[in-house]
């Protein structure tokens, strides 16, 4: 029983951190642009493909693996700049529901493009050799790679927290997020802040793609399995709150993991029930963002 509990805890954390890696960029852009980016999962997928193309199926070491993920982040960040200039920038002054349809279109476009570029064959990337094995903890088999994912999630969270709450840039971000008009009158270059946020959000999606690619077979639809959880985490977290999203991801991961172990015949249901109950109980999320509607 205790070994099972340890496994559920560990597995939940691992899933939660994987969700968070994807959700981090999503919540950032939601907090500042108030746009629910349906294409986020597609850009995550592009990051994974780019990592595969640059780094190959067998990363040489953990350092080159992280390096490749950073390259994927830069590449997807550049795509973010392009997307912002061509699409998102033009939608800033219209009803936010239009951004939904535009990002949905982008999602289809990216999936089609990935199929066109990389073909429909599945690919599999392996974890770097240092973390490509398991340890046994209390009778449960735990792979070092998933420990690495947990570490990566925590590291990204810590970095974002530092930026948002300890730096000058973070203060500007928060000012724009709370009240763009006021921030503008105070002399902040709001369009610039919005553009940087989009690029950062996309870069985070690309980084997540590079880090999580050994977790799953690579196909144009690889984003779909993470992105719905990421959406839920963003909402539970309180729309745009990185801290809230982080806690929400852990909660979702733990619920999913407990569901799979203790109620496997009803697999995957608990997470939605939890979300519905949570929304009715605390509709503004864990850390309600100021100015979020």
């Amino acid at each position: 029983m205790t070994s099972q509990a340890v496994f559920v805890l560990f597995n939940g954390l691992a899933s939660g951190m994987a969700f968070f890696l994807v959700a981090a960029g999503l919540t950032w852009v939601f907090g500042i642009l108030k746009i629910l980016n349906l294409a986020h999962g597609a850009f995550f997928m592009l990051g994974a493909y780019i990592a595969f193309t640059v780094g190959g199926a067998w990363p040489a070491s953990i350092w080159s693996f992280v390096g490749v993920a950073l390259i994927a982040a830069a590449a997807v960040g550049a795509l973010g700049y392009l997307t912002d200039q061509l699409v998102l920038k033009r939608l800033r002054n219209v009803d936010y529901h239009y951004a939904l349809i535009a990002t949905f279109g982008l999602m289809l476009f990216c999936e089609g493009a990935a199929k066109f570029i990389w073909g429909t064959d599945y690919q599999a990337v392996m974890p770097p050799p240092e973390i490509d094995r398991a340890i046994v903890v209390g009778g449960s088999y735990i792979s070092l790679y998933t420990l690495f994912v947990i570490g990566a999630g925590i590291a990204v969270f810590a970095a974002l927290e530092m930026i948002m709450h300890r730096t000058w840039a973070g203060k500007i971000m928060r000012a724009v997020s709370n009240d763009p008009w006021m921030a503008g009158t105070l002399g902040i270059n709001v369009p610039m802040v919005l553009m940087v946020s989009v690029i950062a959000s996309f870069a985070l999606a690309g980084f997540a793609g590079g880090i999580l690619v050994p977790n799953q077979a690579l196909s144009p639809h690889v984003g779909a399995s993470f992105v719905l959880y990421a959406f839920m985490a963003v909402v539970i977290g309180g729309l745009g709150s990185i801290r809230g999203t982080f806690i929400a991801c852990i909660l979702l991961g733990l619920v999913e993991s407990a569901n799979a172990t203790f109620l496997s015949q009803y697999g995957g249901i608990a997470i939605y029930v939890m979300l519905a109950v949570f929304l009715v109980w605390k509709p503004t999320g864990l850390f309600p963002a100021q100015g979020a509607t």
Partner: protein
Amino acid sequence: MMKRRTVLKGIAAGAGVTLGMNATYLRAQTAPIRIGASYALSGVGAPVGTQMLAGTEIAIHQINRDGGLLGREVQLVTRDDKYNSAESVAIAREFAGDGINLMLGGSQTVTALGLAPLAPELNMVAIIVAAAGMPVTHELFNRNIFRTTANNYTQYGSLGRTLIEQNPEIRTWVSLAPDGDFGRDSALFFGRAVEKYSEAASGEKATVLDTIYTQATATDFRTQINQLMSSQAEGLYLGIAASAQISFFQQARSVGLYDKFKAIGEVGNSDITGKALGRNTHPNLWSICHWLYNQEPFASNPVSQQLYKDYVELKGDDFPSGQVAAGHRAAIALFEGIRKAETTDTDEVIGAMENLSFESAGGPVEFRTEDHQMLGLNFYSQMGPSTEEPYFQFNKVTSVDAVEMIEPANPGQPFDINELPQ
């Protein structure tokens, strides 16, 4: 009667030519024969669907090179069913509306279940290319449907038998399958066959543990992998297909599942898994095999040799997937039916196909008259990693005759394994 009709047709055609008249009749006799193909070319079914389409295209190319069918050119009209039943229904209707009454489809169970009940209404001959679900030749059976692949019971029973016969030293087996009709059934059939054939294989009945289930749409298998690792089993049936199967192997390999399980039989990914995993392929991985051009008995089969030659020429690739032969076989079945019927008329083609036998890349096959299920040898391949490109290789091919493993025909009635004599 058939003969008289043919003679009459010949006379009529001759008269038409000499008089230069009766243009519509003439056109019907010389216009191309149009065959519809509905495969999953996008979505999760795409990696399999595109290969099957390649096989069908080669069959069309071959028949036209040999002068066509009934003296007419054969044309292929291709549509993407997007791995979606509503889409496959729309495509079948579009074909019927365009006057196409011969089609290949149902590359997966979801699309086959939408297509099958429709064929009589549309007055079509529909070849189910690769869907193994039992309902197609049982409760959903109708005479317009022909299936050119083994059904679930035959396929996974034979896979179980192959695995226990090839690995008699493995005493304990377990299955991991998606929680759905197909997954549960295939795991059950596999396990029953392992039990049944274990005594003959090693003199002692093997133990088959309770099947472990996953969500049908799951992509994370760590919980199930942990259960597998803690079990007593050393042999595994893996009912998870497509990209999810590759995800399973990625997640399972790092925790040492390859060392624990001495043999794995998988649901039908075959080279799709091998290509993706390469050097990290499980060393004793058994699959459903439609075709392996360079292994016996395929290597010495003339149909197979020609298929390989044309594949390389047309597709510019030296390593065809086994699924190519499935699309090829389905098209040949239809061609031979038309050739035998000497017309493309739906009823006549159905009549001709009901006891048709023909040569495929895997040797002679035939349709069972009662339920239109194809019979022949079913093949199983063993693969493992390799040091050369493409870093995986097939080491062995075995076969089991469908006749030994199939249930009695019972069209119109649901299949229940517990009603079979053991």
